[in-house]
């Protein structure tokens, strides 16, 4: 490789010309707004009049105002539903269907399980708002099995609204995780499984000793994608609960939207936005480090 590199005739600066247009749009429409978000976060500004520099006041309020801080806690709770459940469920389902991964059923499943990935999240939100409403399918099923006592407006109840929103997210992401993990499993050398079987390992032993360790990278991908989806959730919550009841499902994305465009508190919205970006990095970077074995 080293010798090969040395043979390359020229490595000119000209490459930057090819990258320049991409860098330009990235700088204008992503990096500049990002820098402005940081700048705004130190000001008190209603978006129209003069702005006042307030130092870290907005950040201080973020950690002391229970309603604002709750949005971050909700986002972290959503990780359980958006990430933990889809990944664990995906692992078990994928392990169970590994043996039939090439059958016709599996081909159909590939299409079906991707459906939630293809539709807008807004549509998923609308669909599930209806399923979880007081006359929706969820309650109809409960009544049908004689559990009338449990029925409620799932998205309108203080105790169940956040988990109900979480269920919508889990529904969207479980198929993706299952198929990603299944794809990862298909790359495992079948000889490993045969050897394990000959040594007398059962399906459970097989799962822990072969499947799980071989899937490190795929699990990392699933966790990364789903954690970002949980922390940056907006669409589903915007249409299904709008943060209610009583702020019990408000998340940073939604609160940024309200603060910036309804309450005209641009500085506070920006401080929350900075916190969200940092939160995503803090959650995602360690996952990358743990699961990527330096092959990239």
């Amino acid at each position: 490789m080293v010798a090969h590199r040395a043979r390359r005739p020229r490595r000119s600066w000209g490459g930057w010309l090819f990258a320049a247009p991409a860098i330009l749009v990235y700088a204008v429409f992503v990096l500049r707004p990002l820098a402005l978000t940081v700048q705004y976060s130190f000001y008190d500004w209603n978006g129209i009049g003069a702005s006042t520099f307030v130092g870290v006041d907005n950040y201080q309020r973020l950690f002391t105002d229970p309603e604002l801080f709750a949005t971050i806690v909700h986002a972290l709770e959503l990780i359980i539903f958006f990430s933990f459940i889809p990944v664990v469920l995906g692992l078990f389902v994928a392990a169970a269907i590994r043996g039939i991964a090439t059958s016709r059923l599996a081909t159909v499943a590939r299409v079906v399980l991707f459906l939630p990935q293809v539709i807008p999240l807004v549509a998923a939100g609308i669909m599930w708002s209806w399923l979880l409403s007081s006359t929706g399918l969820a309650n109809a099923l409960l009544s049908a099995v004689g559990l009338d006592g449990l029925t409620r407006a799932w998205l309108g109840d203080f105790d169940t609204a956040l988990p109900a929103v979480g269920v919508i997210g889990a529904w969207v992401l479980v198929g993706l995780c299952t198929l990603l993990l299944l794809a990862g499993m298909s790359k495992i050398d079948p000889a490993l499984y045969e050897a394990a079987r000959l040594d007398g390992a059962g399906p459970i032993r097989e799962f822990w000793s072969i499947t799980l360790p071989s899937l490190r990278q795929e699990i990392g991908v699933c966790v990364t994608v789903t954690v970002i989806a949980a922390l940056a959730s907006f669409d589903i919550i915007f249409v299904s609960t709008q943060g209610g009841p009583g702020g019990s499902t408000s998340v940073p994305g939604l609160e940024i939207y309200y603060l910036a465009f309804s309450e005209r508190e641009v500085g506070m919205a920006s401080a929350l936005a900075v916190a969200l970006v940092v939160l995503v990095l803090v959650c995602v970077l360690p996952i990358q480090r743990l699961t990527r074995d330096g092959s990239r």
Partner: protein
Amino acid sequence: MITTRRETLTGRILLVLLMAITIIPFVSLFVTALHPAGTYPSGLAWPDHPQWGNFVDAFRVANMGALLWSSILIVLGVVPISLVLGTMAGFAFGHLRMPGHRIGFLAFVLGLTLPFEGIVTPLYYQVRDLGLLNTRWAIILPLIGLFMPFSVVWMRAHFVTMPDELSEAARIDGASTWQLFWRVHVPLAMPALSSLAILLFLWTWNQFLLAIVLVDDPAKRTMAGALGAFQGQWGTNIPLLCAGALLILVPTLAVFLIFQRRFVAALLQGSSKG
């Protein structure tokens, strides 16, 4: 592979169960859409008199023709430009590897994790100052920028696998870097490009936040953004809302089913790069 009959059976049952859970919300949406407007039907009951007219009504009140056209215009603005710019930069970072290319690439990699909510506020003021608020450009230009990290990372991943000998041969034949790019490398990148095009189409079509923040007129938004407005207006008329939601799903579902093989492959790879 040695697997027992019992395990295969468990696998099949689990798979069918997961598929059922995935499909039932769609079925419920469809059945509900067939009920008389203004009623609150329960569960999965098939209506006595299916109201197929609901779809016609929803098509009319949602102004579907205009919405489709708007979404197509936005996709036509975002996808080709993103592909060209992303491919050029991916080629630079993955193949030309000019001095300092690692740092430039790292800047894009970090952009992969950026939530749109993180920059939407200043984006609003920037787009306003450019005089583009409430035009489709207000969605198109920021989306090109926001998709650029993914496009660059995706295309670079293709170009790093291209052997240097290929370029050396072309250079000996007297090709300039630009010719090398267009004549040799772009044709070879077609599979990677078409998968990227699919993903960008899907994400543009389904984009919600930018659409509702930057464009007031639902008829100038993406499909998903328009669906949000439709919900606001018809949220209490459940059958009509369901019919409208289904109609808005049809274009993506149709494209998905037609190109499902490519879609599935692209989605699988796409999430593993993201």
